[in-house]
């Protein structure tokens, strides 16, 4: 009895892999599109990097010479193609104009800080936000619901920088328990993560609550109750798995956003993260960093969305069937054409 079902699962596994590979290949045109758009925007952006490198005292002749040296005097198409060639054929994001460093190593240097904050925040969001939302849904309109929703409302409304500064004032300045800013051991991450995660916890709780409320009213929950299951079993075996899709979406979006760096938190706590890296590059007209950063974020976001879609498939068999259906019809089309 077990063997065919194992083979069956193996078949599904292969179908999923094909889907994943297809999606990964689709990322190429997406990233190509992103780089063309961001390159064009930067091209038309006012401001001259050559002038800012040389400073205020530079003569126009020196600036023109510098522009020629940097290749900024070339026509749009030539510059675009050479950039695409460099990125997609040589996997090189270029070097920063101002920092003596390649964009890739700049990003990789900052990524660990941003990633640490992002992962801790997402973890907090899941571990605290989801139970809050479930509690609120189960006790809809009750006291627990009110309390959870007040917390959620506060989380959504309180600006991150204000919360960050209050936390610093209290825990770092007044009590002296935690370092006020900078990077170092794990204790440096506590305040930024708490400040940053609060909004995520709130939106997670709200999403979980509304999606649980919807599911709790479904007919199959009545069926489960009619079977004699306990409320706890109904909640965790029947309701929660059905409510997961919107919850996963919130987590995925949050993850993508936070990996892009959180400028406010990074600047309050002086953390060398990706957010500060790219935003300050925009001010400096450091084109390679802006373009490389955006491209890197695009790739990261696409990967996270792919991960979210794959998790969907494992949570909801109907979605998995859709993916497999796409695969099958795609193969059928291929056969028909060949």
């Amino acid at each position: 009895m077990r063997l065919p079902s194992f083979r069956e699962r193996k078949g599904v596994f292969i179908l999923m892999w094909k889907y994943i590979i297809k999606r990964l290949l689709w990322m190429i045109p997406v990233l190509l599109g992103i780089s063309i758009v961001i390159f064009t925007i930067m091209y038309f952006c006012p401001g001259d990097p050559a002038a800012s490198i040389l400073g205020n005292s530079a003569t126009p002749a020196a600036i023109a010479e510098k522009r020629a040296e940097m290749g900024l005097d070339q026509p749009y198409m030539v510059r675009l193609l050479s950039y695409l060639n460099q990125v997609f054929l040589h996997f090189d994001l270029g070097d920063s104009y101002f920092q003596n460093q390649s964009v890739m190593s700049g990003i990789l240097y900052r990524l660990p800080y941003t990633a640490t904050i992002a992962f801790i925040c997402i973890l907090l969001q899941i571990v605290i936000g989801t139970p809050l939302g479930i509690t609120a849904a189960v006790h809809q309109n009750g006291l627990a619901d009110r309390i959870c929703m007040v917390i959620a409302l506060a989380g959504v409304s309180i600006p991150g920088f204000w919360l960050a500064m209050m936390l610093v004032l209290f825990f770092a300045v007044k009590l002296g328990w935690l370092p006020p800013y900078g990077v170092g051991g794990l204790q440096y991450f506590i305040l930024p993560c708490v400040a940053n995660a609060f909004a995520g916890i709130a939106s997670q709780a709200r999403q979980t609550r509304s999606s649980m409320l919807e599911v709790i009213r479904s007919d199959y929950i009545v069926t489960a109750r009619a079977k004699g299951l306990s409320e706890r079993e109904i909640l965790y075996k029947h309701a929660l798995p059905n409510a997961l899709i919107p919850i996963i979406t919130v987590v995925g979006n949050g993850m993508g956003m936070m990996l892009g760096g959180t400028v406010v938190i990074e600047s309050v706590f002086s953390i060398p993260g990706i957010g500060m890296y790219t935003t300050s590059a925009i001010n400096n007209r450091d084109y390679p960093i802006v373009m490389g950063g955006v491209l890197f974020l695009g790739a990261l976001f696409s990967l996270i969305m792919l991960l979210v879609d794959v998790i969907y498939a494992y949570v909801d068999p109907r979605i998995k069937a859709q993916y497999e259906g796409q695969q099958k019809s795609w193969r059928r089309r291929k056969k028909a054409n060949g």
Partner: protein
Amino acid sequence: MNANKKGTPFIEVKNLTVHYTSEGKVIHAVNNVSFSLEKGETLGLVGETGAGKTTIAKSILRILPEPPAQVDGGEILLEGKNILALSNDDMRKIRGRKISMIFQDPMTALNPVMRIGNQIAEGIALHEKVSGKAAEEKAKKMLEMVGIPGSRYRDYPHQFSGGMKQRVVIAMALACSPDLLLADEPTTALDVTIQAQVLDIIKNLQQELNTAMIMITHDLGIVAEVCDNVAVVYAGEVVEYGSREEIFDHPWHPYTVGLFGSLPDINSDVERLSPIAGMPPDPSNLPEGCAFAPRCPYAAAECRKAAVELKSLGGTHICRCIRQMEAVQAPGAGHN
């Protein structure tokens, strides 16, 4: 019929009254409903949409959403014990094991993200306290009993058609051989060609397991096919009750007469159906006196004054109508 020796019926509903509260209005869904049922028997609850049939069934299983629903009074005696007074934990042991329910819409009654086999086995493992493997075996057997190959144990609901899903729901309801089965319009959501099959499955399994059944329906054809007794429900009240023969051969209450009258007749050549005129009363504002009076062709001033009591018509046949004799003996003569 194997009546209990002590004289207590297997299940007895006494003066059940349920209301819903919605936007500040009180909706009287079930008013003073009483009936009883022996093992192996089938009772048909017949009535229009909104008459309170499903509410009756859900209160027997105590799965009404509270709030907005609230049971105001009455007793539901299962083998002499009032289940409305049981604790939640004790009630859980009855659900799915002694009383189970087939729901109206098979499309939404199954958990979409759980394998159907597991959904059946879940109840078995819970009530029969057997291992997962034994529960799985039994669930497969149940699937085969309703005509689905056991190899589809690991499939999900979306891989089945509506008729197949309803069979899964039936297998689930009957998995623990319940003593009482509540079938809430089990064929309404199905294709006509599947209806007969599903009905046959329910009937055969019911006979095999000697289960008492309450069949909720608005289809008199189903009543004729499966029910021993019939209770006609109107505006939350039983307006007529009797054996199938009594109701079909001598429908007494004008509403029952109207129900039969609105059936299309194969033998006569008429272009239009003859429905019962008017709409069911607003359950938040029931008329004083007989609830059917506003639509009743025989209604008199008396009908609108005070609530009408059930009267015996001999045998098990009872009816809630004061002008019952006139209505039947001289149809049409009661027009004012």
